[in-house]
């Protein structure tokens, strides 16, 4: 028997990264702005997305959403009320979405073509750990944090916050009753990801939505 060391230098998520790069090219060619929404369970991703889809629809933008959950199509049904095409991805136990799931669901999405969209939102599985490793080809990764969660979330989950392009603070209408320390939250986000755009929103009252929608429009135009 001979012992030998074989250098491999292979990325473990190489397949995902390659597929994500392909998707990124397809999105760019179609002129659609793709956003990946990540947060813990219960932050209010779905409520925020409901509001975003409705508001964009009202402005005449062509929007669609893919929504990931372990089980049930509850979120897809909620989001579909906005009038936008929505498709549920059930991961059946898997804690994140990956590029292959996105690719497959795009392929078999009847009546929806990337070229006919201005925005595609991907609501990831509620989890602040695993989705950070999986590139979905998105142009913008949005991390959400609610005022009920604690201002130190960015410090507890630095890997996710450091990989984000924008941060959304949700449930601002509850900031008072929750004793939310805004300054500390903003400082913590900046400590992990300097200079990131931060939106302070309430899906209930609509606070902060104007600024968020303006950001989306600016990014979409910038992409073209």
């Amino acid at each position, binding site marked *: 028997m001979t012992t030998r*060391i074989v250098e*491999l*230098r292979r990325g473990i998520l190489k397949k995902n990264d390659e597929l994500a790069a392909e998707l990124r090219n397809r999105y760019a060619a179609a002129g659609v702005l793709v956003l990946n929404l990540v947060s813990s369970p219960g932050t209010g991703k779905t409520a925020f997305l409901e509001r975003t889809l409705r508001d964009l629809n009202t402005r005449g933008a062509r929007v669609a959403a893919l929504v990931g959950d372990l089980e049930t199509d509850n979120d897809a049904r909620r989001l579909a009320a906005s009038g936008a095409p929505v498709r549920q991805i059930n991961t059946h136990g898997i804690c994140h979405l990956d590029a292959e799931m996105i690719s497959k669901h795009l392929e078999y999405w009847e009546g929806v073509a990337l070229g006919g969209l201005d925005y595609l939102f991907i609501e990831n599985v509620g989890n602040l750990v695993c989705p950070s490793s999986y590139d979905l080809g998105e142009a913008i990764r949005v991390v959400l944090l609610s005022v009920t969660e604690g201002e130190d979330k960015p410090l507890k989950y630095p890997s996710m916050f450091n990989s984000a392009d924008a941060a959304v603070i949700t449930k601002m209408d509850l900031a008072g009753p929750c004793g939310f320390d805004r300054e500390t939250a903003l400082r913590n986000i900046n400590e992990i990801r300097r200079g990131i755009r931060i939106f302070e929103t309430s899906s209930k009252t609509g606070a902060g939505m104007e600024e968020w929608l303006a950001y989306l429009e600016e990014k979409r135009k910038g992409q073209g």
Partner: protein
Amino acid sequence: MHELSIVSSIVDTVTESLAAYPGARVKEVRLRVGALASVVRESLEFCYGIAAQGTALEGSLLVVHVLPVVMHCEPCGADVELEGVQSFRCPRCGQPCSDLRQGRELEIEAIEIEEADEVKR
């Protein structure tokens, strides 16, 4: 929590690379894992034993080399190593850094194998 899918992917990749070495057994798999890669060493090791069962990797050792986060600090004009992942500031000048140079790696660096002796008449 996605460590099992990570190790399954390791087993697949290593198995593919063994095609060039028929009959070889794997003794060791060496990984490079960045401090921001969102995987836990202990969990990888635990799952590895399960995923390796019944493959040429069974009984082999998984060696995880954790890489610290390295950022490029503009004011210092240098790459600096962070002590932890709680603050993305240059340890020398205290300025915040956003240019990540190392810390998200998740790769198989090398494998140590035992080759089967060539059977010759």
